[in-house]
């Protein structure tokens, strides 16, 4: 059964004449890595923001475990069911890496007893040592911030992980490490990983590749 299903999803920006997304149908399953590719302005990030519950489609429906996102509490959906890795990280810059992640866990209502220990372990898993974890995000490199972003997305153990150009700001080695983490999350931990990207390296690890063109989603590669 699909974790996430898009049925005839359309989207048009307020006041704009052009429809960005035109009747998109797709299904996303647990344990798989999906990549969505397309030209700049094709609507990749818009689709991602709809899936992430940050915006609402103007037509059609997005179903999470069979429930329409329009009818459920989208704050709770964002807090508990999905983890978003933003291209520009979107971390609290004056807080430390640890504080960012603990805050995310608190918002999701995590029942983890020792949140701090759990956070250090999680950061360790994505390659952030204890010293770096206690530094303000503002003082971390782009790669480190991206790792913190990934750790934050995983902190509340969501079913779906969405990543918007997760390797866009990273060097080749770091990008490879990040992709390894994401594929492991899908294949070993059974998460549904959806990655929006331009990168061929990223599409090479995908189980399914979707292309977006002229507002429509087309299956490019299907394992």
């Amino acid at each position, binding site marked *: 059964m699909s974790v996430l299903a898009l049925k005839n999803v359309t989207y048009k920006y307020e006041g704009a004449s052009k429809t960005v997304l035109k009747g998109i149908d797709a299904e996303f399953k647990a344990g798989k890595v999906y990549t969505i590719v397309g030209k700049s302005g094709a609507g990749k990030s818009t689709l991602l923001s709809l899936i992430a519950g*940050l915006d609402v489609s103007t037509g059609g429906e997005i179903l999470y475990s069979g429930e329409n996102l329009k009818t459920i509490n989208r704050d709770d959906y964002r*807090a508990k069911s999905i983890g978003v890795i933003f291209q520009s990280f979107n971390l609290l810059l004056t807080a430390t890496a640890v504080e960012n992640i603990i805050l*995310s866990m608190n918002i999701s209502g995590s029942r983890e007893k020792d949140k701090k220990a759990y956070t250090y372990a999680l950061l360790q898993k994505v390659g952030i040592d204890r010293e770096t974890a206690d530094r303000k995000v503002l003082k971390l490199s782009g790669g480190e911030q991206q790792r913190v972003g990934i750790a934050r997305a995983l902190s509340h153990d969501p079913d779906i992980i969405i990543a918007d150009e997760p390797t866009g700001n990273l060097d080749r080695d770091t990008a490879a490490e990040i992709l390894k983490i994401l594929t492991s999350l899908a294949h070993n931990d059974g998460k549904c990983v959806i990655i929006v990207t331009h990168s061929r390296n990223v599409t090479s690890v995908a189980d399914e590749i979707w292309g977006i063109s002229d507002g429509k989603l087309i299956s490019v590669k299907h394992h």
Partner: protein
Amino acid sequence: MYILQNAFRNVLRNKGRNALIGTIIFVIIVSTVVALMINNTTGNIIDDYKSRFASVVSIVPNMDRMREEAMKNSEGGRVRVQAPIIPSEQYMEFGNSEYLYNAVYRASTAINCDDIKAIDTDLGGQPMQGTVFVNGEAIVPTSFMFSLQGNKFEDFKEGLRDLAEGRMPESLNECIISSDLAELNGISVGDTFSFTSEIVFKGSSSMTDNQIFETRYELTVVGIYYDATNEYTMGGRKNAYTNRRNEILTTYETVIVPFVPDHNGITVSATYYVENPDMISAFAEELYAKGLSPIFDVKTDESSYNKIIGPVEGLRSISITFMIIVLIFGGVIIALLSSIAIRERKYEIGVLRAMGMKKHKVAFGLWSEMLIITCLCLVIGLSIGTLVAQPVTNVLLAQQIEAAQSAVSTPGMAGGMMMASAGTMSTSPSVTPLSEIDILLGMNTVLQIIGIALLLATFAALISISRITKYEPIKILMERN
């Protein structure tokens, strides 16, 4: 709980911005503490003086109206200016008013006793009536040696009289006497004596059909007091009756037992206390309607009140005006600062909302931050405000007194004042304005300051909250990106 923890951290994370907002709130709180302390302390002083000066009713003859009346009634060019007498029954009637919270009556009459010898008997007594005609014949008026005073105990409060033995009279027919009178006659507590008095009914026109009724008081001595008052009032006639050692003190109710309206012999006087000084006009209307001669003015002692309290009221007015100005300007500055601060924090709000934090929790977090800053300012502001309040008050009060003195130093404005209570007239000593006020931080003031501080924090937070709730997280993040 995590929202509060995050709020605490945010206060420390953004030191510069919060220090700026904190400074403004601190200035507002210090100013408010000083203003409220002055306002509340002066308010209490004013209320106290109002109850002491402005609530006692004075019924005073108006000299201009007395002259006018005398001119009208003059015979053969001779003008006799004389204040009319307020009859005893009118004093009693005036006391039945809904405007009064209290009416204190006193009564007196002249008495004689066959079994007691008065002090200064050799100087003789005093007739209380003029020539009285009964059945057309002039009779020799009775000369009285003692006065029976009902409810005349103010000398005990002033320390001029003090109970030597026994107790004060409480019930009907109980009295106390001076130790001099007791020693002269060998009187002890518990002795009972019979006193006689006279009530005269004056005839209608011919003045020849007067009637004299003898009345009797059976009084038991329940106490003996030391008397340090002057035996004779200055300039008064000296005889046994006017000697104050011969005053028999009893209750008002005892004296008026034989009282009959429209009869002479028992004199009643009263002091009235209006519930609120603002009711004086309505009370005056009522008195005139009940038959008080229009020659009398009915008023409270406003001049003493104004002279003593005027500078304090000026100080209070300044403090309140100052507080309102500070609150308005401070509020505007805080609104602007909050507005600018929230623009800076738009990205942070967007991140929190993207993580799934609900709007009301974001709002609560912002409010908590403002509350933490305000509480900190409140503690420091209260301490510093309390220290500063007294010197500020001293300076402001000195300026007010100086201003008041320069205002009254014009010719004809200075000097003492006449003060008259119902039934008696006296000249009060020259009053001086309050020159010192001990400013205190009462619980009421603390609660008011906490209330204002909470309102400030809420106001500042509301400015921020009203702005952030207009944005969706995606819009905030897109703007940033």
